[in-house]
């Protein structure tokens, strides 16, 4: 459970930092009159705050699975399954999707609608390929006899890749909506602000998915075992 506590400390730290910018030392009983927000661009869009809060929630979900994984890892009957080579290829696809969305974000700032359309479709294709790739990995493993129930290592592998895959597919739904919006928007429509925001949110979410995947991949490939061992020795 150390991992999830560490993650929470991070979240609480961010919350504490944010609270410290909100005049929590003020004495509201002495203050009469309108207090305006600190000068600046005003509060960010609701959808953006919403996404960030959601990322904290999804982050706890993954941190908890990893915590459980690390607790279970210590038992003697843990036979790690081999990391299929296809996972490397899938990782590359997800990196490409994430990078494409970052590029698309830049395009939307330069107000290049064609670029945005191209980028969104590209990111969608890469991500779909990633999902298909993950399914192929599952099939390969099952064909080689690594069933869900035959070992805890397998169970955790399918659970964590499955959870991640579901989050990717949820993201694809959002991406599809933004793509539709991009194709129905005209050059100078009012929708442009909404489109830019949508692209930005997708980019943030994809970076999050990528980071989570890299951590999970490190666990699956077995590098994290050494890391846990070092931590355990440092703590004991």
């Amino acid at each position, binding site marked *: 459970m150390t991992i999830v506590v560490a993650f929470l400390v991070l979240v609480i730290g961010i919350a504490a930092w944010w609270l410290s910018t909100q005049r929590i030392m003020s*004495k509201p009983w002495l*203050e009469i009159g309108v207090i305006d927000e600190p000068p600046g661009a005003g509060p960010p869009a609701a959808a953006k705050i919403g996404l960030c809060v959601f990322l904290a929630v999804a982050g706890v979900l993954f941190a908890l699975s990893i915590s459980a994984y690390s607790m*279970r890892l210590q038992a003697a009957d843990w036979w790690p399954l081999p990391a299929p080579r296809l996972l490397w290829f899938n990782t590359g696809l997800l990196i490409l999707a994430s990078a494409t969305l970052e590029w698309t974000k830049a395009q939307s700032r330069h107000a290049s609608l064609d670029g945005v359309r191209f980028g969104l479709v590209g990111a969608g294709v890469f991500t779909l390929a990633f999902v298909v790739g993950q399914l192929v990995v599952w099939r390969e493993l099952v064909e080689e006899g690594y069933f869900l129930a035959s070992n*805890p290592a397998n169970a955790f592998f399918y*659970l964590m890749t499955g959870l991640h895959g579901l989050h990717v597919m949820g993201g694809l739904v959002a991406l599809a909506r933004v793509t539709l919006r991009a194709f129905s928007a005209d050059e100078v429509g009012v929708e442009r602000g909404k489109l830019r925001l949508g692209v930005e949110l997708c980019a943030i979410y994809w970076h999050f998915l990528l980071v989570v995947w890299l951590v999970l991949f490190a666990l699956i490939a077995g590098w994290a075992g050494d890391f846990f061992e070092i931590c355990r020795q440092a703590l004991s």
Partner: protein
Amino acid sequence: MVDVPLGVAGVPPAEVEDVELYHPKSWVTHYVFSQDAKIIAVQYSVTALSIGLVALMLSWLMRLQLAFPGALSFIDADAYYQLITMHGMMMVVYVLTALFLGGFGNYLIPLMLGARDMVFPYANMLSFWFYLLAVVVLFASFAVPGGPTGAGWTLYPPQSITAGTPGLAWGIVMMLVSLMIFIVGFTMGGLNYVVTVLQGRTRGMTLMRMPLTVWGIFTASVMALLAFPALFVGAVMMLFDRLLGTSFFMPEIIEQGARLPYGGGSPILFQHLFWFFGHPEVYIVALPAFGIVSDLISVHARRNIFGYRMMVWAIVAIGALSFVVWAHHMYVSGMNPYFGFFFATTTLIIAIPTAIKVYNWVLTLWRGDIHLTTPMLFALAFIVTFVNGGLTGLFLGNVVVDVPLSDTMFVVAHFHMVMGVAPILVIFGAIYHWYPKVTGRLLSVPLGQFHFWVTFLGAYLIFFPMHYLGLMGVPRRYYEMGETAIYPPSAHDLNIFITVMALLVGAAQLAFVFNLIWSLRHGRGAGGNPWRACSLEWQTSATPPPHGNFGKELPIVYRWAYDYNVPGAPEDFIPQNQPPLAGEIASRAP
């Protein structure tokens, strides 16, 4: 020194961007599939209160079995476990969490902050329908073969998914699925509550001017968003164990000579996941109650809340601390004594911010102009009850005291006082307080007083003797004491007494239900601000508040929510949207 830019009367309300409001077009989209937070709040509250009545009846059946074993032929050991499980799960998750966050959160957050609605109304609507679906799945488990699960509300594996526990075939699956649906639904609602507080406040409503009710609900929503995933992960893993034969939680088990196909799982892992959710859950229920009580006391004692800043900091501190105390539910699980020491320490540290809150409530009452209205009675009763329940918490928080008391009726008495009776008293108080805003009519006072005294005194007559039973060693979760000679006859007599009291208190709730329905048509008209309160929900253009909450322009906030009995003011309260009075700015200078 206060370096606040002081505004003058007549500041334009601009700056707050006009939100595109969703406009209902038909009766169905107005009252059924509504995206208006106020309607959703009522939907949540009515559903949760109805489930509360069902859970109350389940507890009657349990009490009848304990007092008169065998009197009801349909209650055998299995049925008793099913009653325990469903009562506990319903009350904790589907009643208290849903009512405080889904009910009061939806109603009060936009109104108190001067917002037109929640920021994501569509997700807010979905949140309620997911909740309702979760409830339907939960209740459907009464009808499936084998009945609902009897694993206890903690659902500890391996017993929850091995033979011998009722509801093994269907019940446990329905329970886990229902919880997962609830969590998905809550996440949509919770994002709304949090983001509305962060982003939807009207002009002048700084965080430190929010009423404490909003602080409580906000902090509890953040906690729930971070804690429920633990239950979700636990539920998914257990569902895998039960349906797909994995062994996340299931160790090697020999059952009647045969080896089960499981092996190598860790039951303790589930306990960690469960209580990582379960302990914050206590404060998810308690923090909104703290906030609401602060507001009730301040309004009905006509005094500003004492130590507002400390109250806010205490709420936040309790929220953060409650994530590092979960293992105090696991003292008897064979953990490392050093862990036990650590968790006992963090548990006792929580008493500090909690005590600060209690002192501040009492100091708010000190020399106040106390009006013993029905909401105020419930608020005062909450303070007493919460202190009582909290004191036994100090017993159970210590490892050496907890070990002999673990799994006795003492624990049952403790958690019912602290997170059963206490929050429910607040719920009643809050309903008596805000019902006039929701419906435009006051609840009947005589009925309310009757309801209060029977509920308050009755709850003590139920749960105080239970502490004593626990100290005698009477275990919880036993469906009868049987022929055990170690309990004196007085223990049996006490059980009968508790049961009679439980029946009386339960029946008295009918007065409350009747009051809710009767006053809808026949209650005295309330006007816009019957309690003469400062916060924004009482300053709406009409009562009940129309779609969009406020009139053409959103209110501007000039002051905090607790300006009661300000010297020199014409009335004994100054609404939050009242521009500075003549000479007021100078008189407030420190």
